[in-house]
Every structure is written in C-alpha cells, then in structure tokens.
C-alpha cells in the first residue's frame, strides 16, 4: 500500500521543490552549507531474552536523516543546505582512525552513537578540539559529571533523570517502599546507583536490595525462580528493577511472591521516546518516521533527530555555519527546541545535558510524563530531573 502511494508523491514533491526553487526569491545564489557527520560503530549482537522484538541494527541514523530533511525544508527558504555523511565503523574497526582521517578538519558537527568510553576517547582527541559532538547514545551520569567534556552535548536523558522520573511517579502513587533488584552487568549497577540517589532525594525507602545472578541450572525456571527470589522478609510496595539489557527483568512481572507492580527497566519504564507517545504533535513525527524507516522510532533515533534539528535550529537562527556562534546559541537561554513533548527543550549549560521531559511508559500505554505535576523548581520544573546546577560535579577542564 505504502510503496505504491509513495512514487507519485515523491514525483510531486520533486516537482513542487523545483517550483519553490524557481519561484522563491529567498532561494537563490550564495547558499551556506552546514556539514554534519554521523559516527557510529557496529556492535556485536548481545544475547536476547526473546525473539519478540526484531534486532534493529540502524538505531539512530534514520532519525538523523529525517532531521536533515526537516532542516533542508527550512533551508530552502533561508539559503542554507544541510548535509549528513555517515561513518559506520565495523565491529573490528578503529573509531579513532576514522575520526582522525575522515572527519577531523572536515566537519564541525559530529553526531556520535558510541559507547560511553569511546565517546570520551573521541572527545579527547586533539583533532576534536574544534568539533562539537552530539552524543545520542550514552545515559551515563559520569559523562555529565566528573567525566564531562566541554565539546560533547548529551541528547538522551541520563540515568539520574530517568530514576528521578520514576521516583517522582512512585512518590505520587505513595509507593514508598522499594524492593530493588539489580542485574549482574556493570550498567545495571550504574542504574541502581541512580535509583538509590533518587530514593534519597525523594525520601523513598529501599527495604531490600538483591542482585539477580544468572545460572545455567536446568532444573530452575523463571516461574519457580522468581517466586523464590522475591520471597523477602520485608513487605514492599513496588519492585524496582535495574536490568538495562533485558536479561531477566521481563520474567518478574506476574511471578513475584506477593503481587506487586514492576517498575524500572522493565514494566513501567522511563524513556525519552516510546511508541505509545502521541501527545503534543508526537503522532506526526511517529507517522513520518514510520513511513521513512518501516519501524517505530527508538531512543537513539529520537536523540539523533533532536541533535540534527538542534544544529538546524541554531544555524537558522544565527544565519551561520560556524562553530562558535552555533555553539553559543545552543547553550544560550534563547535556544528552544521543539521535541514533541509539550515543552521547549534546551541544554543545561553546567553539564551539556539536554533538559527534557521523561516518558513513563507501559508496553501499550503512556502512563505519565515527568516532571510529575507538583514537583516544583524555581527556574524550570524540568530541572527537577537529574543533576541540577548546585549538584553538578562537572568542571569544564576537558574538551575545551
């Protein structure tokens, strides 16, 4: 259905595009070009719990492509052209080499979809000094605090922002007694740290904390295992799980010893984007993305979309393609990015984190959007999520 419909439409768009080019007095000679690089490395596929969700290999890049189209629609009228060059490093390849040889000195704006350590490795390269990185993959609080870099902006909400969003919701529901279940991966411990920080901030009580150990004993099944595992001495209101890779978290719901909701990385999750989100014009971008990609938009796609749109917005407003005015604008009070979440998004100048609402979603319904009503802040309620200015440990010594 879609493909048969697309062809004449593309024809029409091309035709109309030339009409606009021919008829629009603004669209003429002397175009400014804004070159954006997209840098990622293929990752080895991790084991998955089930085959329900297809493995998506191109998370991120399609969001950047959609944003380039949007930027160029605006660019037609403002004499600016945006280009996106993709650099996809193979699993065994060397990201630093690719950056030094192909990106450095050629691109001022680089969207990075890389693991945390590699993100900072790139940020610390001598050649990255005059580059602004748009990190669309990491959620690490370290990269926004002690390990922050002045030349890297973070588009996705940090673990602390997510944990605070969950805590606000649990506080509203008066689910104050948490049973915290943590996976064995290093990332799970980081998420658990963020949850503990949130519990402290919002006066929640972690009645017990347990680590889920993976074992290969064939006599044990999720059905019996979870019931035994969740049989703890203290009563609790909610099971809070930290299992970022989804190694066991999906087993918890409906199998706990006493009936309790599951929240965290499974059950009710905190995320920057979700397929159930349709408010504030989100339906439009969900439709546009699906038409382009043939799948739902993932968090990295959303991050990359916002990154490229942020560059577009700053370039349009400053009428420039140069790094300094664009970076200054991005970090200024004037910058207001439309992100389909009902409130303008902007960067926190103290840690380069994009301030944004966090969605709390169940698999098939959007449950709430944090900041939850009632959590107040003198400047913007968005800063009730994550590390606020007085709490930041970020010092801009690196990446300048």
């Amino acid at each position: 259905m879609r493909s048969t419909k697309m062809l004449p439409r593309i024809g029409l768009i091309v035709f109309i595009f030339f009409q606009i080019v021919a008829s629009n007095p603004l669209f003429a000679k002397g175009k400014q070009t804004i070159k954006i690089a997209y840098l990622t490395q293929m990752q080895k596929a991790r084991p998955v719990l089930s085959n329900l969700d297809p493995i998506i290999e191109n998370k991120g890049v399609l969001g950047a492509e959609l944003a380039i189209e949007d930027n160029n629609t605006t660019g037609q009228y403002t004499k600016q052209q945006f280009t996106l060059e993709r650099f996809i490093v193979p699993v065994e390849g060397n990201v630093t080499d690719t950056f030094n040889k192909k990106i450095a000195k050629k691109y001022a704006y680089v969207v990075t979809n890389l693991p945390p350590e590699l993100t900072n490795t790139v940020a610390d390269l001598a050649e990255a000094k005059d580059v602004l990185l748009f990190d669309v993959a990491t959620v690490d609080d370290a990269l926004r605090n002690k390990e922050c870099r002045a030349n890297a902006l973070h588009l996705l909400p940090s673990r602390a922002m997510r944990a605070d969003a969950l805590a606000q919701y649990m506080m509203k529901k008066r689910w104050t007694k948490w049973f915290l279940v943590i996976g064995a991966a290093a990332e799970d411990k980081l998420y658990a740290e963020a949850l503990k920080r949130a519990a402290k901030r919002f006066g929640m009580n972690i009645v017990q904390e347990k680590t889920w150990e993976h074992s290969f004993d064939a006599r044990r099944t999720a059905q019996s295992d979870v019931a035994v595992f969740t049989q703890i001495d203290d009563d609790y209101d909610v099971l809070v799980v930290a299992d970022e890779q989804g190694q066991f978290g999906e087993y918890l719901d409906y199998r706990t010893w006493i009936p309790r909701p599951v929240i965290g990385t499974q059950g009710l999750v905190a995320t920057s984007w979700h397929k159930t989100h349709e408010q504030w014009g989100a339906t439009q971008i969900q439709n546009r993305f699906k038409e382009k990609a043939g799948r739902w938009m993932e968090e990295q796609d959303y991050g990359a979309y916002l990154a490229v749109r942020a560059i577009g917005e700053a370039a349009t407003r400053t009428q420039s393609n140069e790094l300094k005015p664009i970076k200054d604008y991005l970090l200024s009070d004037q910058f207001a990015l439309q992100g389909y979440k009902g409130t303008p998004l902007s960067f926190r100048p103290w840690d380069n984190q994009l301030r944004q609402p966090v969605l709390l979603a169940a698999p098939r319904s959007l449950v709430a959007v944090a900041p939850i009503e009632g959590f107040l802040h003198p400047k913007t309620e968005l800063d009730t999520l994550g590390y606020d200015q007085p709490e930041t440990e970020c010092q801009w010594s690196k990446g300048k």
Partner: protein
Amino acid sequence: MNKWAISLLLSVLTASVQAEVVFVTLEKDNALALVDPVDGKLIKTVEIGQRPRGIAISPDYKVLYIATSDDNTIKMVDTETLKEIGVLPSGDDPETFALNPKGDRLYVSNEDDSRVTVIDIAMKKAIKQIQVGVEPEGITVSPDNRWIISASETTNMLHWIDAKTNNIVENTLVDPRPRAVTFTADSKFAWATSEMAGSLMIVDAKTKQVTKRIGFEIQGVTKDKIQPVGVVIDKESKRAYVALGPANRVAVINAQTYEVEKYLLVGQRVWNLAFSPDQKRLYTTNGVSNDISIIDLNSQTVTKSIAVGNYPWGVAVKP
C-alpha cells in the same frame, strides 16, 4: 386559540431559533457539542465522525465545515438540521483549515504531508496542493482576500501564499513552533503565536517582517508552561486575546499599545478561541478540563465554564 396566545407562541419559537449557538468539536468523543452561551448550558451532543478537530462556519452561518481527521475528510453540516450535506476532499489527516471571506474557498493544512490543499467549495474539489514547510498547522486568510498564511511548526515559518496564484511568494522566519495566525481586520498585520518560545509576533503584511514581539509573564507559572496557541483580534483592533495552553489563561492584549493588560484564568490547556458574532463574549476550548469558558468582554471576566465532553478542540459560533 386567541391571537395573543399565537403571537406569544411565535415569539417564543423565534426566540429559541434565533438564540446564539456555540459549536464545539470533541476530538475524543467523535462528536459535536452545541452550547447555549446565554443560558450557559450544553444543549446537546451529536455524533459527527472520526476525530473531529478544525471547525468553521460559512459567512451566512448556514453551513459548518468540520475536519474529521481520521475520516480524512472535511464534512459540510447544515447548522439547523445538523445533517451532513456534503464532503470535501481534504487530503490526509486534516486538522486546521481556513475559509476565505467570501466563503467559496477552503485552505487545509495537511500536517503529515507538508502541504496545503486548496478546495473549491462549490465544485467540492481540491484545485491545488501547495508544498509548504514541515508540519503545517495554523492557517488564515486575510480579510481583504489577498493572502493566505500557512504556519509550519517544524520549519518555524509563515508561508505567504498569494490568493490569486496559490503560490508561495514570501516566507517569514518566526519563533519556534508557530501555532496559530490571524490578521487584523484591516489586513495590515498578521499576529502569530509561538508555542515553544512562549511569544506572540506581529508581522507587517507589507514587509513580511516581524515588527513586534510580545512575551508573557504570569506569577506562579513557570515560563515553559506558557505556550501560546489560539489568537483572535476584535474588529476594531482594540484588543487581542491569546490562549496560553497549559498556563490555563487567556492573555488580554491592548492591540494599539501591545501591552498585556490582563490574564484571565480559564480551563486547563486552553486552546482555541472564538468571538460571539456581536463580539460581546469570547469562547475558549479547554482541552484537558473538558469544558469551555465564557468570557464577558465588557467586564473582562470569566463568567462561566461549561462541561462539554472529551477533548474540546475547535469552536465556531452562529448568532
């Protein structure tokens, strides 16, 4: 029956026929609500089609145009019988549209396709599709029928379409996520709201430049809650009214000095606005609190709020 009784009966009948009616589209109820604004009562609710949003009334007040977004049509409804009398080909997912002053052309924003569809109402045909910026939303026709302005939310522009040729001749870059746009009665200025910057811009129709920017400040409401959406200006260009979305207020602006005179507390997520035909009252749709507010413009006070149904979206008024 004596003559006296008959004339009384007649006068009662005509009074009930002539009473002002406010029509409100209910996005989530697939329905249209009819409200008597003088008595302050919901008269009735009728089914109208899938996801009704944009609504307009013909200059002779005989026909309602209602965008039923999920039916991908604009329906023509008789204002007396409330029966469907025709369907216009609106393109995909119509939301907002504008009627020209004569009432023979309709301009529809097709948000997903980044275009504006021009419909000839007599022929019930789309006569042109104009490519505009990404996610066009607000649309208006100048009272002198010279310009159509389409505001694109993601491109952040007002596209000036010549009503004679249906071509874009100029573009004005405005603050992020422009939502609604309307002209002053003399067609000299366009007023446009920006949802994300929380501002109102006044654009000179001659130069197509923003000549004035108005910001809003409300005590106890954070800046990011102030999201201007609908805007209307009275016939004398004395005052303009701006719906401020989740700030739950309507701003009253002196249209001569551009001063914000007052904020009126209305329902939650106030969205679209419409004057009564005599411009004595202003009606607001409040998307989250599921009601409409009635503002008495003489005293500049909110006199009533009336529960109408789920997600009241658009509003049109018949005298």
